[in-house]
């Protein structure tokens, strides 16, 4: 992967680069790129506009007519956000659930992954490479492959008929969802953090060892502080992944409304007759607002995590 090797630094804004840059800024290329960007944004934009229009307008005219006849209301948001009924709680409940699922489901795997990455990067032991490659390979196991046995495990605490976990009666709480997300997040997290931890200079680690730091102190005083940027970019990744997940929430939530995340509710709303566009658009936008804020404010870290995952490979 020679083209990915970092090029000599400090060349970015030399005259050569600028000349190349000018020569490349063909107006046609820019025009084409802008057209595609608009094309990519219009569907989301339409949804946003619709969510602020009165119900009557939504069903009788296209959202693009909004600009000739602007009629703004917050009613849609008010109703999905606050009003529940006997069967379903209002969206505010699901928003709470999404946070209650996402935060632990990001903290747990990251902690366990950074530990394992540390062990795989700095402990010398037999079979280390084998474990590392196995974890790398586990990344691509489709979630679907694990669902049935894992659900049975949570429900009964048994592996092949043998009790391995106490029957904790955790189904119907957040706990199975947390554990499932933790497990599914581990392989990629370990792989990425391992790549990062390996780059910590050997002299630094050895100096600390010579000074008498044990393996635990070494982690606490040197490895952990140095790996915070990498942890941060993966945290964003895991946060978005869990927040946006439907499959795990649907299966491991056991269909219990009190703990279901936003995505599960939104999917349910789509499937229900009688959920009009005024409800769906507002609901969809509420489910998107947190990831969009995270995305636009932390885009740089998000991209860094993404590139570490796919380019380093």
């Amino acid at each position, binding site marked *: 992967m020679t*083209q990915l090797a970092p090029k000599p630094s400090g060349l970015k804004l030399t005259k050569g680069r600028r000349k*190349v*840059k000018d020569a490349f800024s063909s107006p046609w*290329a*820019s025009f*084409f*790129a802008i057209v*595609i960007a608009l094309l990519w944004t219009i*569907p989301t934009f339409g*949804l946003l506009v619709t969510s602020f229009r009165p119900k009557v307008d939504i069903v009788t005219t*296209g*959202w693009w007519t909004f600009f000739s006849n602007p009629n703004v209301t917050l009613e849609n948001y008010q109703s999905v956000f*606050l009003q529940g009924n006997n069967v379903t709680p209002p969206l505010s*409940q699901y928003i709470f659930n999404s946070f*209650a699922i996402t935060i632990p489901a990001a*903290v747990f795997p990251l902690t366990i992954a950074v530990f*394992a990455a540390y*062990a*795989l990067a700095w*402990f010398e*032991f037999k079979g280390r490479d084998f*474990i590392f*490659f196995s974890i*790398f*390979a586990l990344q*691509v*196991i*489709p979630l*679907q*492959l*694990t*669902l*049935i046995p894992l659900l049975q*495990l949570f429900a009964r605490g048994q592996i092949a008929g043998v009790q391995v976990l106490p029957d904790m009666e955790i189904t119907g709480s957040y706990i199975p969802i947390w*554990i*499932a997300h933790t*497990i*599914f997040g*581990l*392989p990629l997290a370990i792989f990425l953090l391992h790549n990062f931890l390996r780059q910590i200079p050997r002299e630094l680690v050895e100096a600390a060892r010579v000074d008498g730091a044990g*393996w*635990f*102190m070494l982690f*606490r005083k040197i490895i952990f502080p140095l790996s915070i940027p990498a942890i941060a970019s993966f945290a964003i990744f895991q946060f978005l992944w869990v927040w946006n997940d*439907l499959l795990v929430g649907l*299966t491991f939530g056991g269909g219990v409304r*009190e*703990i279901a995340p936003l995505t599960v509710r939104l*999917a349910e709303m*789509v*499937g229900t007759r009688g959920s009009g566009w005024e409800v*769906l658009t507002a609901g*969809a936008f509420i489910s*998107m607002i947190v*990831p969009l804020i995270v*995305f*636009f404010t932390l885009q740089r870290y998000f991209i860094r995590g*993404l*590139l570490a995952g*796919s380019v380093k490979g």
Partner: protein
Amino acid sequence: MGILTFGILTARETGWDVIAPNLTITIFGLLTFAAVIFLLFVIGERSSVKAQEWVKYLVFLVPALFLLTIGLIYPAIRTLFLSFMDARGENFIGFENYIWAFTKPEILVVLRNTIIWTLAVPIFSTTIGLGIAYFTDRMKRGAWVKSLIFMPMAISFVGASVIWRFVYTYEPNLNKPDIGLMSALAKAIGIADPPIWLIEAPMNTFLLIAVMVWIQTGFAMVVLGAAMKNIPDEIVEASMLDGASQWRRFSQITVPMIRSTIVVVVTTVLIGTLKVFDIVRTMTGGNFETNVVANEMFNQAFQQRNYGTGSALAILLFLGVIPIVAYNIRQLRRERTER
């Protein structure tokens, strides 16, 4: 002040009696976890140098290995086992479930669709992503353009499905104005009677695929764009001095130089596409010949309660990934030895 009242109002309407126990268990979970970690470090740092040599494995490596074993490896093996058993996982029935998958007409459609998805999504998103990455590579204010195209990556598949269902909304009454953008555009270009977008096969599958392409293009663009930035300027300049045309420069310098990144992007998108289930589930529910393996697996296992057929479909999904895993491991091995 307004926000405060809003918050209180929300809490009341939501029902504090539901939130309170949920909040308790969340905080309790986080605190327990923190306490365990803290305790392990206290024990670890206090133990002798000799003891640390094995305590370190226990604390740092074993938890991850334990979770991966019971959470991924064991379930994967058990699913393989279940795929040879009957619906309730009690009796061995040989290849019955696989024969079912390859003979039942509905499932054959599901398999066909999955193949179409895994071909179309990587091809389209990588090609479009590559094009945009090239066009914005040295563009002024290209960051904004990229940001907009990348944005769908942050949206959930369910959210994206709502967005696109709205675009594809069909108005049966021809005299009423359209509220779906797609129908309105079709009429604007002269198609007086647009099709029912999400119902008519095989077009509907491609309309669903478009949603996934919409999401994945940004990913392809960002990763390929980063690789393009690493092409040395000297090479680009040299080609310009030689008078190479834009197209030649693109096809004979840019693409070959980022070839391995293109492979990574294609495989990543492909794996993601194999697993996708939310889009089909939310947009059509798998009806009207749009179903894919990932969604049918869910139906079989959790709606029909047939663990045998559900597992067999999951295994088929996995078989689709194996060549990619093998390739990637080989790549990784080679790179490691190069270093």
